């Protein structure tokens, strides 16, 4: 009984996200073999997604957010999936910047899993301890030498309010990179398929197609 209730809840949440996407204003562009979609939600928040069209299965390469500050004015892009490939701004304007020798945390999904790669981590695999905190809906990475610590959530799981399970979590280590993998549950896969169906409806502009109204 409980399980049924939970499933209906998850279903409701996923439809809410889908509805949200449907109601958003969308602009779509195909450029460099990538499908780029820009969403503007009703509250003024912006989201940008990129998909690789060559792989055929339209795997999410990048998702970033532009949220409105409390006082108005736009903040910088926040990356949910993928990484900022723009060159770092000169230090003078920022004043403070994480050194490039620090571990870099990036989410790179595969078709069946959520995956996070933490580069620049030179310690052996025994150092790491990755756990699920079901109550706070987060995953925690600890190091026994107290050099690295990260607590993060999975926004995709939060959107449908699905519970996190330790069993679905696994880690691997190679080439100074720690890879944390979490298996996507069925609900997420269903939702992603539905979203893809929806996105097919938006007409994509080709690169070089510029709306031009000569007057």
């Amino acid at each position: 009984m409980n399980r049924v209730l939970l499933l209906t809840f998850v279903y409701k949440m996923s439809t809410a996200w889908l509805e949200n996407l449907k109601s958003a204003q969308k602009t779509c562009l195909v450029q460099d073999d990538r499908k780029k979609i820009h969403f503007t939600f009703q509250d003024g928040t912006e989201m940008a997604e990129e998909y690789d069209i060559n792989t055929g299965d339209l795997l999410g390469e990048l998702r970033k957010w532009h949220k409105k500050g409390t006082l108005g004015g736009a903040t910088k892009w926040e990356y949910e999936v993928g990484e900022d490939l723009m060159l770092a701004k000169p230090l003078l304007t920022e004043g403070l910047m994480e050194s490039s020798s620090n571990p870099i945390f990036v989410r790179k999904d595969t078709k069946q899993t959520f995956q996070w790669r933490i580069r620049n981590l030179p310690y052996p695999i025994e150092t790491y301890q990755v756990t699920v905190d079901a109550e706070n809906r987060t995953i925690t990475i600890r190091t026994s030498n107290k050099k690295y610590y990260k607590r993060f959530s999975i926004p995709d799981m939060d959107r449908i309010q699905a519970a996190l399970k330790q069993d679905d979590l696994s880690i691997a280590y190679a080439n100074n990179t720690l890879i944390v993998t979490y298996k996507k549950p069925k609900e997420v896969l269903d939702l992603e398929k539905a979203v893809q169906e929806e996105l097919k409806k938006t007409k994509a502009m080709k690169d070089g197609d510029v709306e031009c109204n000569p007057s």
Partner: protein
Amino acid sequence: MARRSPLPSIPCFKMAAPPVQVQEVREVTRIERIGAHSHIRGLGLDDALEARNVSQGMVGQTSARRAAGIVLEMIKEGKIAGRAVLLAGQPGTGKTAIAMGMAQALGQGTPFTAIAGSEIFSLEMSKTEALTQAFRKSIGVRIKEETEIIEGEVVEIQIDKPAVGTGAKVGKLTLKTTEMETVYDLGQKMIESLTKEKVHAGDIITIDKATGKITKLGRSFTRARDYDAMGSTTKFVQCPEGELQKRKEVVHTVSLHEIDVINSRTQGFLALFSGDTGEIKSEVREQINSKVAEWREEGKAEIVPGVLFIDEVHMLDIECFSFLNRALETDMAPVLIMATNRGITRIRGTNYQSPHGVPIDLLDRLLIVSTSPYEEREIKQILKIRAEEEDVEISDDAVTVLTRIGMETSLRYAIQLITTAHLVCRRRKGTEVSVEDIKRVYSLFLDESRSTQFLKEYQQEFMFHEVGKCESAICCYSTANLGYLEKVNRDKTPVADILSLDSIDHRNKVHDDDDDDDLQGYFGLTIYSEAIRRRPAQPYDPGVARSKTEQGSHPLVQTLDRDETIKSHQN
């Protein structure tokens, strides 16, 4: 060679460097500049709003301070908006000091904007825009906002100075929590603020990512064994846990102007072409106003009406005054405090005369507080306070002499002499400023009346003194000069023959249209000082002037000398 040290160390001048060593560029801890009103810490009132005679750096002006205290109470209760106060009084009677005292008494939470009347005349911005911005800077909004902060214990600070020349400094800062450690690259600005806050390894600090503001929370407990070297005031705190970067909700006060600017920046590459300031569209302002009203209704934000202080308000012109009339009536107006030292004079931009150079209709809306000249013992007290503020040891006799100078010339001139006399004293390796030092600087630096006297005597030797022949030269130096010349005229000095009153009137009439006659004082001063600077080149004997002052021909010098003789008699 890059120098590795936690922080640029405070230079030690006594240390003798070995002769061969290449001299290292040392960073001197900046000596803080002392402002003219840096000694003021409040209005100096007791709980019943009665003015204490000497308190919080304020001396005398009891009735004006009491009046200011009442206004302050009204501001604190937040009841009044759109009220205006005018501080009127002669130069050097503490108008600005009272305004600064009010600002200090209001504290950090209340926005206080101080501008000078002439500040709003800019070519890049209209007068009303500048005034509107000043108004909106004075209204605060207290709001809860989520900010990203970095909180951790400093493991190491490393600042690399460029080997040659004046290149940008680069640095690295290592921070840790109980769980992790991160290295940050530092920019020039961050290095400066770290140096200013005197952050060392072992301190627990927070850095606001958006503003770059650094706050020192205390020392880490793990460094507690350094206690003896730290002093008892050092606070010890636990090393923070978890991640270094945190999101925290903070309540802070932002001014309406700041919200305007955040929302008016053009996005994208257009931002390159539009500067930070510049005019803000009225649509943006209206949007912000309704947004703020919305927050207020929802209980998210609170309006903090602040204070706008306009010094030298007579420099505003008639358009600004009519704008002020209107602006004071809006419901989100701050308390306006103005100061002027003018009597009945022309309103700028018109030919009408009005008290304080402010139109009657605006004067009608003001509460006028007047300040009166200081008495002798008050001047003495102020001089003592200033000497203390400027870290100058001064003998009692010297203070008495300075007070006399302050009475006979002006308080400002007397205050100027403190610093200069201190320098003279240091030159002769003295520790305490004596009467001799004061006398020396008094003969070195002229006050306004002696300078006038000097000019009267040597007017002919100066450049452009032949006013009648050089029309163009005098025309651009408008009335101050003319006023001065008129004075000269009355004194029946030779200039009177060249320039008749009639011609002055004539010039006045011709040039009344343009506004620059208010700039009189400045231009007047410029030519005097220019003339004094050129003095040696002039064909007259400077020895005459010097001998005159040295022989004590000037009344004040005489009084000084008399003091000296009286003293020696007593001895």
